[in-house]
């Protein structure tokens, strides 16, 4: 397989690896709970889980500096948590509550935290790519030496937005790394059934841009490769494609059993190589004890339970703020003369609800 071998000797100290394990476990536990809450009808909408992809998520974010920016698709719980958004704010968002990171307006697909450089959580396949390109352009215009990580799935590489964004990024030398999380399927469509060039990283050559493929379940390799590409982006404004090979254990979303297009055996085979098991073994080798690690697992359970409690306690967004955030402050003045003849009930629903008046 054309994946770059894991770094000869790991760059990670045991403490760092332990911290990564904490992140990965937290993500797994959080999403397992999210699925339970979804089935209990306390979470709605689409709910896309990334169980199985934790090494990619945690590894990529670990390679980012605080000044770097992150943009993702809709499968973003793990990225938000890895970037440091509190489980409380994420769970509250899934519950649609005021204290959610998008104040209950965005839900599972539209998490964000601009203080942490996380610019969303987007739901249109490949729609985030042009936006990531623009963020990178802004970094350059502002003289910053940070870079953008733009996550997308294997299915997104067949959208026109991929092509236009990569061409712009390469033509203008913008500091952005396009992270293709290749989990084998776009909904029920295997990569080979969607892309005429199934080695997705090779498509970077059409833009004279470097493209690499990495074993996305090998957290060391993910960190090493991402770090290298991000450094080139920051220092030389060299954009790149990074394809991480991983696997999604659950269905496309909680509504999908995920068995119509792949075999139980295939899933079992992949789960037998679970990145969590891998890193746990590495930590045991490094001298940590099972009790240490079990403690981490327990803490994750408790942290997630606390997040659920927080979300439950958080208030629903007030209906009289239906249009909250839609427009900037001062816009109410602009809309003031629109009321005559408005559709029935429009005033109450919109004009009186946070047009930045």
């Amino acid at each position, binding site marked *: 397989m054309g994946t770059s071998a894991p770094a000869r000797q790991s760059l990670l100290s045991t403490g760092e690896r332990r911290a990564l394990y904490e992140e990965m476990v937290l993500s797994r536990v959080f999403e397992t709970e999210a699925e339970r809450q979804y089935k209990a009808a306390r979470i*709605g*909408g*689409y709910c896309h889980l990334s169980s199985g992809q934790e090494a990619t998520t945690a590894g990529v974010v670990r390679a980012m500096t605080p000044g770097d920016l992150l943009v993702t698709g809709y499968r973003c719980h793990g990225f938000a948590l890895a970037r440091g958004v509190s489980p409380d704010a994420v769970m509250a*968002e899934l519950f*649609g*509550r005021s204290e959610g990171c*998008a104040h*209950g*307006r*965005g*839900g599972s*697909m*539209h998490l964000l935290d601009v203080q942490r450089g996380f610019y969303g959580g*987007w*739901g*249109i*396949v*490949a*729609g985030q790519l042009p936006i990531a390109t623009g963020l990178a352009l802004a970094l350059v215009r502002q003289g910053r030496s940070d870079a953008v990580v733009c996550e997308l799935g294997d*299915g*997104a590489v*067949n*959208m*026109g*937005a991929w092509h236009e964004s990569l061409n712009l990024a390469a033509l203008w030398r913008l500091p952005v790394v396009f992270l293709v999380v290749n989990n084998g399927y*776009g*909904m*029920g*469509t295997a990569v080979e*059934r*969607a*892309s005429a060039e199934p080695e997705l990283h090779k498509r970077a050559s059409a833009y004279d841009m470097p493209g690499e493929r990495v074993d996305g379940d090998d957290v060391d390799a993910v960190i090493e490769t991402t770090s290298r590409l991000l450094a080139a982006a920051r220092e030389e404004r060299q954009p790149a494609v990074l394809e991480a090979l991983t696997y999604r254990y659950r269905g496309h979303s909680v509504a999908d059993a995920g068995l*119509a*297009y792949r075999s139980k055996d295939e899933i079992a085979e992949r789960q037998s190589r679970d990145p969590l098991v891998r890193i746990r073994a590495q930590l045991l080798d490094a001298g940590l004890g099972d009790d240490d690690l079990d403690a981490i697992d327990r803490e994750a359970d408790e942290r997630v339970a606390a997040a659920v409690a927080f979300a439950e306690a958080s208030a*629903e*967004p007030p*209906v009289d703020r*239906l*249009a909250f955030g*839609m427009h900037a402050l001062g816009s109410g003045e602009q809309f003031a003369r629109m009321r005559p003849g*408005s*559709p*029935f*009930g*429009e005033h109450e*629903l*919109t004009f009186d*609800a946070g047009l930045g008046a």
Partner: protein
Amino acid sequence: MTATAIASETMTYREALRLALREELGRDERVFLMGEEVGVFDGAYKVSAGLLDEFGPDRIRDTPISEEGFVGAGVGAAMLGERPVVEIMTINFLLVAMDQVINHAAKIGAMFGGEVRCPLVIRTPNGAGNQLTAQHSQSFDGWFAGTPGLKVVAPATPADAKGLLKAAIRDDDPVLVIENLRVYTTKGEVPLDDEHVTPIGRANVAREGADLTIVSHGYATVRALAVADRLAEEDGVSIEVVDLRSLRPLDLETVARSVTKTSRVLCVEEGWPSYGVTAELCARIQRACFDDLDAPVERVGMAEVPLPYAKNLEHAALPNEDRVAAAVRATLDLAPAAA
């Protein structure tokens, strides 16, 4: 089901669409279905479930995520005489393919002087689901209905889902069939006759009434009928419901006939009313029925915000039955004197 009626069966809207597809695929070799997940996955909303086994991968064609590409492929195939039915998972994703629909499919007949036609069908659901949020809960019905060169239908019942999809497939022009996420599971009687075709451009008086007319299409018609029953009970008012079925062409004759009778009208839609379908209805009704109206033409739709995620906000923003009922009452309250 009366004795004289053609054999019919109760089924869901989704099953009615599937029946129409199966019948037309069986009837005409040129018909094929193309879209994301229509085959192996049985369709994102299961409309095409089972059709892959029955007709094979050439006629039930899974596509990459490339709406612009495969909508355009449908346009090209149609120009050469095929009868492509392109499924767009939801109408929100049609925005990446607008250029092919508006600048290409809609232009072919006129721009090339009638030398070539484009018998393309695009099927897609509009509207809100269950907290799908701002990017996944839209209805652009009026945009397409306002584009000369296109025909647009929006069935509200399983029977019309079958009849209008078949009409669209048999039509020689590009036709957009607007379905709805919430209507898929509604049930109704569907004629089994494989010549059951609902003519394009004919509205349907779904419910007779005397006091007020509700004009709507798609899922809004389901809401309208529920409100009509409820207000008949609660307020003893008699509401007539005109289900448009077609948005382009629009059957204003049927709408005007009803308004002339009731003198009061409320237009309801799932999408944003401003610059929407109900705006066009208001414009035509006030012109066609100027002397008959006892009150202004009223309308209700989705609150004019990107649909928020939170359940309570989503409910408040949608044209729910309470909001429709309130609008009906307000419209009836206006004294004729006021007019």
